[in-house]
């Protein structure tokens, strides 16, 4: 399917490296978000009531259409106000799946090539270790999540279309209820900004995983995890502190830039706007993380230079 789209055509070393990452990680880049999106769509279609009543409220079952038909004016207003947030929240399964793709792609990035002996083939090509590692880093931090955002965008449009069908036969108009209060470009922009900032926040952790990947003889996951656990225990026992865990937690949660107050209530779910997300870069922790990432990546490059098998 991708054959005609994907041609390198002539001498473009970095482009070739990026394609190589795509070919190797097709599953993480494309298949994972595709499958999650497709499954989510199936779940939605089922819950729409095509296969019978499936929404359970106080022991009674309804179709989506019935729920909309029975909404009070107040509920409808609330839905209108929160439709953007709802759509954002709906992409959570895709983004969670992609988060795991990022983690495991980073862990395998410099390990798999040693495991299958192909490292000597890659090293027989005139590309530097730093370029190779940069291509892997970009794949993990940008390509995988940005492709996923494409899928969330498709899914959001799908939801709006489904919602439109659900309003047919009710007193509400789809335009009023859903489309007029939805700002798809703004949501897309917000998600792109979020993904970039998340990757920058998480960079020290991802760089650590890549370092484990270049060193590990057996399991990069264990090699990445065990020192962290040991150090955290050591810290807790002897100093009664938890700096390392806090550091990892903060960076892995993207500096908590998402700003989700998941209380179960619509009104407490208040995702931040792109500007607010960008503002998280003013925190010293953000820059500290980037500095740590640069050091870890430098070590990773040096180690790949050395390790030929």
């Amino acid at each position: 399917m991708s054959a005609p789209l994907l041609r390198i055509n002539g001498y473009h070393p970095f482009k070739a490296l990026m394609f190589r990452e795509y070919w190797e990680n097709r599953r993480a880049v494309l298949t994972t978000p595709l499958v999650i999106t497709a499954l989510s769509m199936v779940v939605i279609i089922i819950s729409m009531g095509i296969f019978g009543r499936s929404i359970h409220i106080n022991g009674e079952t309804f179709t989506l259409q019935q729920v909309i038909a029975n909404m009070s004016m107040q509920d409808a207003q609330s839905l209108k106000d929160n439709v953007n947030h709802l759509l954002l929240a709906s992409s959570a399964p895709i983004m969670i799946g992609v988060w795991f793709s990022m983690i495991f792609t980073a862990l395998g990035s410099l390990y798999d090539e040693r495991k299958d002996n192909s490292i000597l083939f890659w090293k027989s090509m005139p590309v530097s270790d730093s370029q190779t590692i940069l291509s892997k880093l970009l794949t993990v931090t940008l390509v995988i999540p940005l492709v996923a955002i494409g899928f969330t965008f498709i899914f959001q449009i799908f939801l709006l279309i489904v919602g439109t069908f659900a309003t047919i036969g009710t007193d509400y108009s789809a335009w009023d209820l859903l489309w007029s209060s939805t700002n798809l470009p703004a949501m897309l922009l917000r998600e792109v900004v979020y993904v970039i900032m998340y990757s920058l926040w998480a960079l020290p952790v991802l760089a650590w995983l890549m370092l484990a990947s270049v060193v590990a003889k057996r399991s990069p996951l264990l090699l990445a995890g065990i020192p962290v656990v040991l150090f955290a225990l050591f810290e807790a026992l002897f100093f009664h502190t938890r700096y390392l865990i806090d550091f990892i937690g903060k960076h892995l949660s993207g500096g908590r830039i998402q700003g989700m107050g998941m209380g179960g209530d619509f009104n407490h779910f208040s995702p931040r706007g792109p500007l607010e997300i960008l503002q998280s870069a003013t925190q010293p922790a953000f820059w500290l993380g980037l500095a740590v990432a640069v050091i870890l990546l430098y070590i990773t490059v040096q180690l790949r230079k050395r390790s030929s098998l």
Partner: protein
Amino acid sequence: MSNIITAHNLGKSYGSFQALNNINLNIQKGQIVGIIGANGAGKTTLLNSILGLCSYDGDLNVLGFDPYNQRDEMMKKICFISDVATLPKWIRVCEAIDFVEGVHKSFDRQKALGFLAGTNIPLDKKIRHLSKGMIVQLHLALIMSIDARILVLDEPTLGLDIIYRKKFYRQLLEDFFDEDRTILVTTHQVDEIENILSEVIFIREGNIILSANMDDIVDQWMVLNPATENIDAARMMAPVSEQTMLGRTSFIFKDQSRDRLAQLGEVSRVSLSDLFVTLMEGD
């Protein structure tokens, strides 16, 4: 003649194990050099040093580059096939071609497709679905389509059957090798490459014990199969080694007069494998 690879006091140790021991080496353009040694003698370490795959002590210059620090620049001019450096299993044949074209300026796609047309390798298949012979053919096709100065082959034909092995070297000579290029090759099947080599380097325990031109070897070393009554006379002429097999005794001589030996029996050319065994058992 210009040296394209020079090593001066090249050494490499792994802990207390000395894999290469102050090696000095000059390899000139237009040669096919066989590097021959037992397992663990240091052949692969030498090749890996030349390819910039490992660090080393001493001076090493390959095409004017410092291999370890300038590997990416240097690899524009060097290609490498090894039994252990396999193509990644997940890549498709057409993707491998795309990739090599993307990173090698001098890659000629038409040439590669031409070589592949002569095989039954399907372009849309992944490497994991190809036989070992096909993978080596593909690798060779990719590499022969790069305008490289040096080709390094480390046990390239290991695990291939005899038909593929013969084809491999024949293709290399016909379609790749010329006076501007140099080939370094290690193999256990010494007899198969003996007649294509122009230089030979014997390595033992990290030392070069012989580095010579094939013509010189043929001039200097010879095998004598003496008539039974001349065996004692042959022993008197200080042979390097003596071998008895199936009741026939043969001697290997170095720097002896061919005419004098011919008086004692049949004189023939020494095979590299016999010479290798002789030198390994000596000292």
